[in-house]
Every structure is written in structure tokens, then in C-alpha cells.
């Protein structure tokens, strides 16, 4: 890599530092780790969604060649490990005892000398079940006649919690007195993040040292260490969690899964390293799903289109255990961002959560906690309002945007938006796509009986959790951290509490540090994922890395600079007050030619420190963000519909994003391409479905459909830049905006195409058949 000028590192399209290993097949993922005497584990899972466990017979399995151990829930119960806490204050079975609550629930673990023998052994475990009626529909689950799912809880109900925000009465009053009220039911279907690498671990308990090393697919290795210590009783300093290269996470790798705990137990019992890597089927059927929110929105507005109030209700289906990874105070996450980009005078939102006989969750899939649900709901419902009033959806949005002058803006549901210029992003998007011209074309095509649609989404996100007085997970505050060590030769080791899974931290964080220290990106190496070496942090999810660890990087570097300045003054033989940091070096005020670089200072820190100053040049910064960051943007989608097949073709998609200061435009664009593609998949094909008996119908990639290069549209990206006022370099998170903002743009475009037929809403995924059945019900035969 060519050297980059120190002064302008931020904002450069710098090739990623992590790539050379990945393009040569030299990445190291969990399944690549092989240790001496390592054995393999496979899990026995329930074929039923709801059933009593009558008996588990392990003799046949234990007699199979190569099988070393079979662990059941009863075994774990003796060690007090049959249940584990979730990150949302609930608890979850590690291995089933008493009954099973979802299909593919973990029932037993088989450990064997080879992978093949482990699978053979798992097949040989005999389990007797007494099937019970399964509860699949979340609304049915709340009815009094519904079977009680969680007999272990004190509360004898399937209802988990109720949460609300805003002004109930004021909202009601505004709705009663409004000119116009629209109401829309919207389901955000159950989806799964499905990173390409499944989850897995190698648990290595060393009887000699008494230490457990857990290599695990983790987005949050420190949280895993602390929780594992709490669950297992092993002292925390005797656990080392290493999250090596992670093949995508998208929220799926935040939780601790029963398989990890079983592998740890097996390693403790056998004194050998135990590898467990789930199959894709196991990944899709038992690990963290997302969404499954059943929502209703009402908007009250004047005839002029000005919004007066928003009322939202949602039912959240969490499956068998409330295993989401949400901040303690926010069981419905940041769902109250549902007022979006609009200046609602008042609003009220409430969410109830419920158990069903489905896989436990649900996690934030490529979004901050429940933000995608909220954004989709408001952007969908704004289009319903536009249709009701006969106002162009772009115009309706513009009329209701929070104006730039109102920032920092306090929303009706209590968030303080840091910065935004929503109209600017909208204007750029409309101009880029040629909105006026497209509307004319649409009119023309409609006259010819053709179906073309244009969909908008002007979303606002809320990311970077979060201020520590508000945000914690399982009690641990949601700060993040950076530790910098400047070596004598001016090279830097930068360590973080986050853990990237493709986001490019090894490059972008190096850019931040290099910028702050006047060094080249090549001088900085970024390390994450090993709890023995990295400073404590809460990990990477919810677009929080740049807002938190990215800030910590800048501030740790500034802390280094404070000390470096003292050394510089010593080297320049002047007073500290006469030294300034400018153009990436320390200069004598008024005599800029007299200067030293960070490299000079680094060497002096170890070889020639000023008298009385500690040698060395290091800093640690634990960053408690004063607020979240609020990225935003406008997306425009243009679709054409085949009246014969119901096929929706995305003709164009323009994405204008504003994530504040851009550290590396190449990486930001890549994040946006990826997020849009996931949003596209969710809008048109991804869904985890169950039949009425609770059988999962989407348990592999032949039924859980992910877009290939052929279906995926070409993306057009542009940006505006509205820096965050409170972030040290003005950056906001970006990885998730496109996934949050795009589903509404896709669906709005399809609904727009069909609006001459009176269509106002279609639930995702928008399959060909859904479109086809609308067409046929209006007598359009194709």
C-alpha cells in the first residue's frame, strides 16, 4: 500500500488493511482453528415445537464408535447450568429439561473423536416426546385459552412485558380532533440475519492452567466473557474469549448460544478442546431471528398535510425465550424513533411482547435495536397519508420534516436528534433520480395500462448506543474503548473493545488514529477480539462502533498527544505553552519551521523522556457517548411490474445517505451496497415461516431466500454531510442505514405502482404471488 499523506487521512478511499489475508484464503475463522486432541460436538434437537420430554436414552449413542460423551439437560441441571440468562433479562434453556418450546431446540450434546462420529452419535440418541399443542400466532398466544408456554415463570401468562412512550391522552385528543386520520396495520415479518459463516466455537479448557479459552463467533467478546463467567462460575480472569475473523454477524453473533455453553461443559468434563460449528439449518432454525413485529400506526393530520400526532401499537413475537439483546431500559429497543424525520407535535407508542413456540430472539438485524421496524412503519404510513390526501409523497415528506433550525431536536417520544438536514438529502435524491421526469413517465405508462411505481423513504436512524446513564446490557454500560500504544519507532498498536465482522475497522480506525497522530495508516495496526489484550468494550452491533469506539480512538489519540506535547516541548527546548499541534506535527508557535513529528516524540518517550515524566507513550480511553447519533437519508426506488407473472423489477434505486463525517468513502459505499441488498432481500424474499404446528419452513438456504447477484439491483449512491456535533470527528454510524431505510422504499414503490387499483399496503415479503393476486382480483389477466 502506498503511503498516504498524514494530514488528510480521514476522508480518503484507502484500500482495506484486512484484505490481503482474506483474498489469499489466510483469514482465520472459528472453524479454521484446530487444536491438539480436539474433539467434535453435535447437538440433538427437538422435532417438535412444543412437547413434554418423556425420556432420553443415550446408551446406543455412547456405544457408537468414537463417541466420548453425551450431555443432557439432566446432566446440566446437576451443575446448575440447565438454564442461562439472556441479554434481555429473561432466561433460556441450554439443554431442554421438562419440555421443549420450539422446533430444533437443543436437547442433548454428543461429543466424539470426529465430526462424522458426532453426527452419527447425535442420530443415535433416542428421545421420547409427548407432543403438546403449539402456539404459533402471537395474537392467539395472548388469548386466555392459549396453552401456557413458560411454566418456569412466576407469571402464569404468555405475555412478557408492556412498554410505552409518549403522551397517550394528548395523542388521543389530537387524533379525535384531526381533519384526517389514516390507520395502517403493518407486519414486519420474521427474518434471520444469516451471516454466511454460521455460529460456532472451540472451547479449550486446560486442566494444567485452569484456564478456559473460548474461540467463538462473537460480535461482543467481552460481554461473552463476563456472562460466561456468571453462568459457569469460572472466575472471569480464568476465561479468555477470542473472537477471530468473523464471517459476517448482522446481529446474529451477539448472543450466547446453548451450543457454546455445551462445548464449554464438554471441554471441562473431558479436558480436551471441543469444536462445535452449527449447520446452516441449525443457524436458521435456532439462533437469533429479527423483527416479527405486528404493528398498527395512526397518523392524524390537517388537510394541508401537516402531521398532528402519531399513535403506534405493536405486538412483538419473541418466540420461546425473550432472547433479544436489548438495553435494559429499552425492552422495545429504540422503537420510539418511529416519529422518524417528521415534526410530530405529539405521539404515543406502546409495545407488548409475547411468547410463542418459535425460535427465541429477536435481535437487531443490521440495525439498531428495533429501528428498522420503526422506520419501515413510519415511512410506509406516510405514504398511506399521502395517498389519502392526494399529496405527492415527496411533497408530504418535505412539508413535515424537522427543519434544520430545530436541531438539536427533541422528538415527541423523547429523543434528542443531534443534527440533520432532511430536505437537502431529499432534494439530492429527487434530482439524482430525475423525479419529475419519472412522474411524467409514470402518468404516460398508466395511460397505456402499464404498472410503474416510484417509492420514497426519508428515514432517520438512531445509532451508537449509548449514553451510559441510559444504556446498559445486562448491567454493563454501553461505553466503548480504545487503547493505543505508540512504539519507540513511531508505530502504533491500537486495540478496541469492538469486534468487526467485515465493517473495515482495521482500516477506518487506523485512519482516525493516523489522522490524530500525524502518522500514516501504514503505521497503525488495529487489533480487536481478544479479551486478554483488548480493553473492555461492548462490541460491534447497532452501528455503534464508529460512534463509540471510533470516538474513543480519536480521544485516546488526543490523550497520547497531550503527553507527546510535553515531550515535544522538551525536544524543542521551549515551554509547553509555546508548542502547538498543527499540520500533523508539533510546532513552535510563531516559528513553524521548528517542529518535531510524532515519530520523533515516540522515540524520545522511550529514549529521552523529559525529567520527571513517566517514560512510554500510551493511552486508554473509555468513551461514554453524550448522545446517540442520528444518520438519515432519502432513498428512491423505481419499479416496473409484469402484469402476467406479478414480477417486480427494480429499475433504479438511488440512495442518498448522510452519516456525518465520512472516514473512508469506499467503505461507506460498500456498507450501503450491502445494506441495500439485505433490505431488498427482506422486501422481496426473506422470511422465516412456520406452519400451524410450529414446524419451521425456512430452515435452509433453499427456503430462506437470499438474493444472488442476478436478482440484486444496481445501486446508485450519493451523500450529503451533516456532521454530528457531539462526536469528536463528527461521524455517525452507517452500516445499517441502508437496511433500515430501504424496505419502505421498495414496498412504497410497489404500492405506488398498484395504487390506481386502490392498493394502499402490501406486507413483506412482496412476492410475485402477492402482486399477482392483487392484479387478478382487479381483473388484470396479464
Amino acid at each position, binding site marked *: 500500500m502506498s503511503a498516504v499523506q498524514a494530514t488528510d487521512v480521514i476522508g480518503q478511499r484507502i484500500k482495506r488493511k*484486512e484484505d490481503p489475508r482474506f483474498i489469499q484464503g489466510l*483469514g482465520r475463522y472459528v472453524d479454521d482453528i484446530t487444536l491438539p486432541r480436539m474433539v467434535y460436538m453435535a447437538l440433538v434437537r427437538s422435532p417438535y415445537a412444543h412437547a413434554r420430554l418423556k425420556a432420553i436414552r443415550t446408551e446406543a449413542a455412547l456405544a457408537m464408535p468414537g463417541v466420548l460423551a453425551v450431555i443432557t439437560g439432566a446432566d446440566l441441571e446437576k451443575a446448575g447450568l440447565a438454564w442461562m440468562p439472556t441479554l434481555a433479562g429473561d432466561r433460556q434453556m441450554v439443554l431442554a429439561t421438562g419440555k421443549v418450546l420450539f422446533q430444533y431446540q437443543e436437547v442433548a450434546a454428543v461429543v466424539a473423536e470426529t465430526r462424522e462420529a458426532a453426527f452419527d452419535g447425535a442420530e443415535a440418541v433416542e428421545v421420547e416426546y409427548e407432543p403438546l399443542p403449539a402456539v404459533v400466532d402471537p395474537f392467539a398466544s395472548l388469548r386466555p385459552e392459549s396453552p401456557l408456554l413458560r411454566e418456569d415463570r412466576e407469571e402464569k401468562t404468555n405475555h412478557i412485558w408492556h412498554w410505552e412512550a409518549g403522551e397517550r391522552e394528548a395523542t388521543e385528543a389530537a387524533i379525535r380532533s384531526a381533519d384526517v386520520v389514516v390507520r395502517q396495520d403493518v407486519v414486519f415479518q420474521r427474518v434471520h440475519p444469516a451471516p*454466511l459463516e454460521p455460529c460456532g466455537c472451540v472451547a479449550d479448557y486446560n486442566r494444567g492452567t485452569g484456564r478456559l479459552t473460548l474461540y467463538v463467533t462473537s460480535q461482543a467478546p467481552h460481554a461473552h466473557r463476563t456472562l460466561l463467567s456468571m453462568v459457569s462460575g469460572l472466575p472471569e480472569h480464568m476465561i479468555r474469549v477470542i473472537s477471530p*475473523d468473523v464471517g*459476517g454477524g448482522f446481529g446474529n453473533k451477539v448472543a450466547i448460544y446453548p451450543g457454546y455453553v455445551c462445548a464449554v461443559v464438554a471441554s471441562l468434563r473431558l479436558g480436551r478442546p471441543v469444536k462445535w460449528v452449527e449447520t446452516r439449518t441449525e443457524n436458521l432454525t435456532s439462533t437469533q431471528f429479527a423483527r416479527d413485529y405486528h404493528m398498527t400506526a395512526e397518523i392524524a393530520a390537517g388537510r394541508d398535510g401537516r402531521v398532528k400526532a402519531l399513535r403506534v401499537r405493536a405486538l412483538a413475537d419473541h418466540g420461546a425465550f425473550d432472547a433479544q439483546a436489548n438495553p435494559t431500559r429499552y425492552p422495545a429497543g429504540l422503537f420510539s424513533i418511529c416519529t422518524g424525520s417528521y415534526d410530530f407535535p405529539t405521539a404515543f407508542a406502546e409495545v407488548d411482547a409475547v411468547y410463542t413456540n418459535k425460535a427465541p430472539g429477536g435481535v437487531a438485524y443490521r440495525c439498531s435495536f428495533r429501528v428498522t421496524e420503526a422506520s419501515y412503519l413510519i415511512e410506509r404510513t406516510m405514504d398511506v397519508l399521502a395517498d389519502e390526501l392526494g399529496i405527492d409523497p415527496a411533497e408530504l415528506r418535505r412539508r413535515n420534516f424537522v427543519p434544520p433550525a430545530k436541531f438539536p431536536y427533541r422528538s415527541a417520544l423523547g429523543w434528542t436528534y443531534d443534527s440533520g438536514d432532511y430536505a437537502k438529502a431529499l432534494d439530492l435524491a429527487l434530482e439524482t433520480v430525475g423525479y419529475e421526469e419519472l412522474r411524467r413517465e409514470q402518468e404516460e405508462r398508466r395511460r397505456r395500462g402499464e404498472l410503474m411505481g416510484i417509492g420514497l423513504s426519508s428515514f432517520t436512524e438512531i445509532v451508537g448506543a449509548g449514553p451510559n446513564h441510559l444504556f446498559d446490557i445486562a448491567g454493563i454500560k454501553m461505553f466503548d474503548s480504545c487503547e493505543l500504544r505508540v512504539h519507540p519507532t513511531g508505530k502504533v498498536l491500537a486495540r478496541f473493545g469492538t469486534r468487526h465482522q467485515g465493517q473495515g475497522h482495521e482500516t477506518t480506525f487506523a485512519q482516525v488514529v493516523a489522522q490524530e497522530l500525524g502518522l500514516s495508516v501504514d503505521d497503525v495496526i488495529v487489533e480487536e477480539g481478544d479479551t486478554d489484550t483488548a480493553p473492555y468494550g461492548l462490541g460491534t452491533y447497532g452501528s455503534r462502533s464508529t460512534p463509540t469506539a471510533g470516538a474513543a480512538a480519536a480521544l485516546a489519540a488526543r490523550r497520547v498527544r497531550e503527553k507527546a506535547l510535553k515531550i515535544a516541548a522538551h525536544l524543542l527546548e521551549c515551554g509547553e505553552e509555546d508548542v502547538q499541534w498543527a499540520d500533523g506535527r508539533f510546532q513552535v508557535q510563531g516559528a513553524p519551521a521548528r517542529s518535531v513529528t510524532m515519530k520523533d516524540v515516540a522515540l524520545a518517550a522511550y529514549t529521552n523522556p523529559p525529567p520527571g515524566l513517566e517514560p512510554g507513550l500510551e493511552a486508554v480511553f473509555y468513551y461514554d457517548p453524550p448522545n446517540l447519533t442520528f444518520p438519515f437519508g432519502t432513498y428512491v426506488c423505481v419499479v416496473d411490474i*409484469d402484469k402476467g407473472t406479478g414480477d417486480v423489477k427494480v429499475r433504479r434505486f438511488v440512495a442518498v445517505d448522510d452519516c456525518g463525517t465520512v472516514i473512508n468513502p469506499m467503505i461507506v459505499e*460498500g456498507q450501503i451496497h450491502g445494506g441495500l441488498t439485505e433490505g431488498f432481500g427482506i422486501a422481496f424474499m426473506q422470511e422465516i415461516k412456520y406452519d400451524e404446528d410450529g414446524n419451521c419452513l425456512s430452515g*435452509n438456504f433453499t427456503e430462506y431466500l*437470499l438474493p444472488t447477484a442476478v436478482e440484486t439491483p444496481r445501486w446508485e449512491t450519493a451523500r450529503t454531510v451533516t456532521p454530528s456535533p457531539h462526536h469528536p470527528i463528527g461521524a455517525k454510524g452507517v452500516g445499517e442505514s441502508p437496511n433500515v431505510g430501504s424496505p419502505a422504499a421498495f414496498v412504497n414503490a410497489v404500492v405506488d405502482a398498484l395504487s390506481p387499483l386502490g392498493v394502499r399496503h402490501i406486507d413483506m415479503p412482496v412476492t410475485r404471488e402477492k402482486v399477482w393476486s392483487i392484479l387478478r382480483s382487479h381483473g388484470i389477466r396479464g
Partner: protein
Amino acid sequence: MKRELTLTINGQPYTGVVEPRRLLVHFIREEAGLTGTHVGCDTTSCGACTVLLDGRPVKSCTLFAVQAEGHAVTTVEGLAREGELHPLQQAFWEQHGLQCGYCTPGMLMTGAALLERRPDPGEEEIRRAISGNLCRCTGYQNIVRAIQEAARAMRGAAEPVSAGQGAAGAASAARGGMVP
């Protein structure tokens, strides 16, 4: 049941004693210790395990190692030659054609095989060619771009004057559309 098996991978013989049910991908990863080839599914869907079998890209999770005996297997570790990255590896790096890196080896093998066959593929043709490889991070756009850039680089290396964009369009059109 077990048998001794020798496979040629990246020009080197690798011997292992395996059951017939040993999948090629596991032989590559475990007997040969070449972990660049990944496993992402169990239904022949994702292509993370793509390797070249006698030069053609195939899913090594859907082939038994015994079936590959006597054939030439190429994995991502065999792409670079004498310390020089393959132009496609270089282009993936330049064009940000990867994020988490998990699909990357498979994508590279499919892309490299395409470029062997088609020196100047158009965008549609590239998208079809990589449609057996799933990527969850990039949205494919930069992968397509990387393959195009590698094609240019490889043509440039083969012939001093680079062929124009026009040829790419023609190649794509010649293939014709297959979907309704």
C-alpha cells in the same frame, strides 16, 4: 471402510486416510490444512466452498473426496503465483470487493474460472456467472466491478492495447436472455 486417498491440490499431492463419505471440502480443509475454502450451508446453495476441479468451479461440499481422486483441484491458496497476487485478487482489494471475507475465496475461484473462459465479460454475464455464490456483505456491485477490472488488467497483460467497453456489451448480448 477408510481408504487412503491422494489428491492433487494446487499442484501438490495430499494424502489422507478417509471414509468415502468425507466431503471434498473437509478433505481440503482438514487433510490438506487449506482453510481458505469455507463452508456456509448444507444445501449446495452458498458457494463458499467453491474450488476448481480440472479448471471448472464446483461446490466442494457436494462432492466426495474419493470422486476427486486423480483430478486437479485448485483452491484460493493456489491463485497467487510466486508471491504475485492473481489480478482478480488484486482487483477485489482495489475495488472493495469483500467485507467479511467469508464468501471471498469462493467468489474468487468462480471469477477466475470465468475470466479463463471469457476475457471480456459484460456485467450481466458476470452476475449470472457468480449467481451460485452468495455474498451477504457487499451487494455484489463491487465484486462485479472487481471482475471487470481484473478482466481489463488481464487483457492488458496479454495484449498491449486494452480492448474497449464495446466488446463487453457484445459478449453479454450474444448470450441472450433466459428469464421470462
